[in-house]
């Protein structure tokens, strides 16, 4: 069964890199994953998205994702520029960066689970810059269980990060995992369990 994940962020936050590290982590766990980013001329700050499919068998379709099972949004404001919930599947899971209380958020009725973390605050503490990708990988692991924290850690260690940069990103994954609040979204209304 293929699970489809769509990641949203802004240029410079590492959305595309997060998709690549996630694909690596999933492959290490024996899964098959493909990740296709969409970007062009965009510079720092412009909306960026990436599509990731994961399955227990090889994946052939190299296409974009239109009905994601999971939305990961690593930037709290990009939803003003793009409809990050466009086309989401029935029963979808949302993994969002933000500090707004869930009750004040406008969320799609078809979503069933929400993972919420103040990723910008964590990133500012760790990196002194709002680079939220690693924090949100931890949040994804916590919210969905689709990938283990250990596999994410190993994938990060295999990446181009070294020394202090690697240590910071490992800490970011960890804190994203620990500090994500996971909520079940009720079927009939916008209330939260």
């Amino acid at each position: 069964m293929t699970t489809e994940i769509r990641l949203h962020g802004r240029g410079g936050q590492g959305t595309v890199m997060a998709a690549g590290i996630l694909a690596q982590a999933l492959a290490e766990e024996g899964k098959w994953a493909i990740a296709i980013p969409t970007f062009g001329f965009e510079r720092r700050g412009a909306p960026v998205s990436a599509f990731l499919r994961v399955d227990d068998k090889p994946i052939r379709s190299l296409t974009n994702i239109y009905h994601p099972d999971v939305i990961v949004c690593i930037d709290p404001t990009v939803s003003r520029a793009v409809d990050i919930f466009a086309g989401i599947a029935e029963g979808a899971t949302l993994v969002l960066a933000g500090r707004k209380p869930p009750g004040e958020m406008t969320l799609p009725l078809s979503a069933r689970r929400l993972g919420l973390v103040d990723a910008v605050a964590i990133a500012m503490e760790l990196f002194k810059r709002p680079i939220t990708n690693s924090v949100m990988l931890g949040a994804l692991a916590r919210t969905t269980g689709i990938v283990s924290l250990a596999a994410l850690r190993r994938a990060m260690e295999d990446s181009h990060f070294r020394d202090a940069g690697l240590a910071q990103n490992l800490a970011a994954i960890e804190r994203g995992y620990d500090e994500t609040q996971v909520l079940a979204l009720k079927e009939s209304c916008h209330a939260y369990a």
Partner: protein
Amino acid sequence: MNQHVNSSRMIVCDGNEAAARAVVLARPDVVSVFPITPQSSLVESLAQFVADGALGAELINAEGEHSVLSALQGACLAGARTYTATSGPGLAFMFEPYVRTPGLRLPMVVSLVTRDMLSPQCVWGGQQDAMTVRECGWIQIYCEDVQEVLDTVVMAFKLAEHKDVLLPVNVCHDGNYLSYGVSRVELPAAELVDQFLGQPEVNWHIALDPERPMSVDPLTGGTGPGGAASFVGYRKSQVRGMAAALEVFSDIHAEWGERFGRHWAPLVEEYRLEDADIAIITIGSMTGAGKDAVDAARDCGQKVGLIKVKTYRPFPREAMIAALGKVKAAGIVDRSVSFAWDCGPLHQDVMTALFASPLRLPLVGFIGGLAGADITATHFERVIAETTRAAGGNVPSSPVWLNEHD
């Protein structure tokens, strides 16, 4: 990497990195580069591999693509194994040395990370750049996925350098979907690739060597004595080399399959074609979604198959006719256009192959995936539906533009 000399290992990377890793495995002597979207990360990877010591090549960071290929021509004439990669406008700027390379019989490998041609302005994938140079005498190969990019770039060196071929090879992979598309691939062990490629042979047929002086690229043609004959002699041997490439590449694929366990179809792949009524014909990264669409149609009882074109130049006409002989109609999906024929270039080639054979069947042309546009399952459903109608005699007279309303 050094600790994995004897065994293949799983890695996760995009098509650009896969091409760069294949280049590392092929151990070229000289690599010359100039970055251009969507190829840039490929040459950045190569530069990193050289910096890390994984690739022992001379890296020439030239001031533009014209110089990139000119430098490689010199290196190749001095006996070096050479590689570069380019895309769209970079390929256009490379054109003058590009058209000379096949006639010089220089066995280079150059990846084309395909991109739609300007204008209108765009930076996204499409095959118009590669298709624009389809008649220049380079061998052209198109890849379906990241693993095929990796395997094919290695195999391309063996093809280019084969004594019956001695021609430059373009290995094409689609911008965006393959250049940046990440997946899990098997990286063959360096030692096994060394055994596969064998000792590189210096191209003594055209070499700059003070010990063996020769006139390189002599003046031929004209109406003087022997002029026409000498030019025809060169051209005929070039055409012969091109024709020989089909069989040589098939043998190379068979050997690759034996050594590495991955059996790619060298010319055209037939997918679920036995007992099929219609076929869709694909090229490049759209193929995977096409195969999934065929499976879905089969699940609904439709007898559909797929023909994937891997080797495009020289055109594998016998293999194509053999495949088409199994169906009653075919729908060709092109990712570029032929301005001359109001159809896609692949469509035009399939028509030509058919006319050169006794076989006749209805063809429907589809153009999709231009400038980064997606060719999805839904688009392929339409391809299958239109082609099924064509089998019943209802053939559209002009191409169907799949993304016209996307």
